[in-house]
């Protein structure tokens, strides 16, 4: 009984899940719309997605912060929910699977940082 009262480390992942979920709920659909459908629907000129303008957005400091927050939090939200859904489906993943799943979100986060660093200022 007493050993079952081990403190859970879920708060870390739950907070990331919640933050990402809230962000995705508020603006996720709008971002897909802007990236994929705004140009074909004529709301934006085709040059909006040109190399030069995309580069200009990602080189801007605020643009970098925005991209980092959105992409990394979406990863953390998604993997947490998927991990629990596996449990719901009867796949009770152990420590190794937990490392793999949350590790993938960490890898995604680092990949975003690296890409943004390569793009530079």
């Amino acid at each position: 009984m007493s050993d079952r009262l081990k403190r859970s480390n879920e708060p870390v992942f739950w907070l990331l899940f919640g933050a990402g979920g809230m962000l995705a709920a508020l603006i996720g659909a709008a971002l897909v719309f802007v990236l994929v459908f705004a140009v074909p629907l004529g709301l934006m000129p085709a040059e909006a997605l040109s190399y030069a303008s995309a580069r200009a957005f990602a080189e801007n400091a605020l643009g970098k912060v925005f991209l980092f927050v959105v992409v990394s939090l979406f990863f953390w939200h998604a993997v947490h929910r998927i991990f629990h859904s596996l449990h719901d489906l009867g796949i009770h993943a152990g420590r190794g699977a937990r490392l793999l799943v949350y590790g993938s979100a960490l890898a995604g986060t680092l990949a975003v940082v690296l890409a943004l660093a390569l793009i530079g200022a």
Partner: protein
Amino acid sequence: MSKRRPYVRPMDGWFKRDPFFIEYMAHEGTAVFVWLFALEMLAGLWALAAGEAAWAGFAAWLASLPGLVVNALILAMLLYHGVSWFLIMPRTLPPVRVGGRRVAGSTISAVGLASMLVASVAVVGFFCLLANGGQG
């Protein structure tokens, strides 16, 4: 001797037991599409870092028929994620009191859905202004 022999029922397929659970599994499933969109954005950033040719390839994917179909599905699922997120919010949020009275769950959901609408319009508006303004 005791004749007790408690029977534990299996949990296999529990989510098919009730429409409520089916809806739950469906909205949990939106996470797969949030993940796909994060991956797509990450691919875009890497293409942007790799240079003009790589970016052109990424832009071509977005404009291609498979790209449009996949992203239409992602868009629909992200909308569903947003709506279901705010519909369960009265259960997940600490009780809100205004003037000593507890705010009804339906009001909390309505405020959440309204903020989703406002934020979405703001994002689309911001990027449209940025794109069109940039052209002069």
